[in-house]
């Protein structure tokens, strides 16, 4: 389920930093051509048809801070194109919307929130998700999606597009971070909880996809999915495949 090369693969993406050039390449939709050392994922290379039928969807990955490249790699392995989203122009240009789906990655939710607001990306992002762009939020991404953040950092806001209340760092400090085999309604998943949040309350429209013990750790409402953990760190493709198959809400 979790072949050892995944572990060594983690950092490989991270520090694949011809930094700036690499980012520019990704923005232009070119792959950096980095050697793939990881075992092939199930369904690798599947072309996922868009509802409109124009081939691979373009997924915008919010790239202000956090574990961005792991999502980019997983999405590309599943046949999607990716663009990095930092400023409003990355979401919407003169030619209309630039993304068919969105991923809000893990990272530090209070940092990402502040950067979203200071770069003017907060409101356009909120509107895109509220308008139905299929979205997956992982860890800090779940916190950003939530209606309410319990124990938020002072002044921290969230997008309020998913009717849940989440608690940050609900499983404890880094010492309690863990790889976990989880049963989800989409199937079994091997994922990583890193200083993870938990859903403490969910509205009537919210479907629970997974629990850890009694705690809710994965939810879906319409085209928006939020998970408390990191499927991208273990290379678990379940949630990203689901994202690519989700029609605009």
């Amino acid at each position, binding site marked *: 389920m979790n072949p050892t090369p995944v572990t*060594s693969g983690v950092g490989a993406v991270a520090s694949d930093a011809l930094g700036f050039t690499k980012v520019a390449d990704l923005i232009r939709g070119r792959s950096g051509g980095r050697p793939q050392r990881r075992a092939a994922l199930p369904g690798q290379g599947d072309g996922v048809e868009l509802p409109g039928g124009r081939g691979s969807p373009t997924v915008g990955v919010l790239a202000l801070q956090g574990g961005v490249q792991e999502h980019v790699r997983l999405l590309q392995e599943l046949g999607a194109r990716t663009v990095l989203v930092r400023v409003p122009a990355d979401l919407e240009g003169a030619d209309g919307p630039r993304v068919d789906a969105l991923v809000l990655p893990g990272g530090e939710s209070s940092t990402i929130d502040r950067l979203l607001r200071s770069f003017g990306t907060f409101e356009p992002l909120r509107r895109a998700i509220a308008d139905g762009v299929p979205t997956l939020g992982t860890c800090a991404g779940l916190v950003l999606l939530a209606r309410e953040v319990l124990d938020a950092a002072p002044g921290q806001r969230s997008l309020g597009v998913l009717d849940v209340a989440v608690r940050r760092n609900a499983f404890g400090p880094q010492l309690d971070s863990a790889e976990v085999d989880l049963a989800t309604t989409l199937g079994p998943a091997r994922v990583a909880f890193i200083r993870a949040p938990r859903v403490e309350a969910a509205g009537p429209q919210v479907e629970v996809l997974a629990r850890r013990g009694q705690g809710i750790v994965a939810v879906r409402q319409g085209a928006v999915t939020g998970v408390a953990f990191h499927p991208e*760190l273990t290379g678990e493709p379940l949630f990203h495949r689901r994202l690519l198959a989700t029609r605009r809400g």
Partner: protein
Amino acid sequence: MDPMTLTVTTGSPLVKRGLAEMLKGGVIMDVVTPDQARIAEDAGAVAVMALERVPADIRAQGGVARMSDPDLIAEIIEAVSIPVMAKARIGHFVEAQVLQHLKVDYIDESEVLSPADYAHHIDKHAFTVPFVCGATNLGEALRRIAEGAAMIRSKGEAGTGDVSEATKHIRTIRHEIAVLKATYASSPDELYVAAKELQAPYDLVREVAESGTLPVVLFTAGGVATPADAALMMQLGADGVFVGSGIFKSGDPTRRAAAIVKATALFSDPAAIAEASRGLGEAMVGISVADLPAPHRLAERGW
């Protein structure tokens, strides 16, 4: 399978390296009080480093620098919701045991403190908490990773406000990786000698040569004092930056901290860096590394 039965693995390399992955693109700030920690969190720091004296003061005051008082670390953990790191002396595995007991999120086995062991670093595999270690070159980075480090920071020269050593160290590490990659492409049999020369385990050397990257996140540190300094480190290939004395030794720490966070996020956008750099007041005065006599250079600690 009973859905309530979970396999839960803490402290694995993936879990230790995973937190560092989540810090990427961010700024980790040195703080010496809970108030400073709150200012750092408000400014958008991804983590804080809790310590009693920033490197500039350690440098000025001299004497033996040790792990911080557990009370201070506990107060800072209590004050903020972002990850808290703390420093142990090189080789001082009991300070590390204490820091793990205090539930810090990351331990920095740091040359900024006085070394406790001039031969051995801490066996970091023995801990559940992850470690970040300093390195001035690739061999040093790989030795630390072999010992279990889950994150590397290039050292720079802490407490100076002079970014030149940070530039040198990140460039050195990146250059040595590029050379290994080229060697692997042309003559993979030469990697055995490359490993000998780097004084690093062959398997790790080969992994870097194949992938063209370190197997863990690489931050940079030491002398970063301005938004442009931080963006320079990012453009040189760092995954993120540590800012030590540069924030709270400046004229307006609140604004400078937020500005460095913004410049780190939009590191390739000169307009954004210019905007972030406006009206920040005095940067830390600093000292030129060239004026530091060799015995006072912290980067030379670590083996």
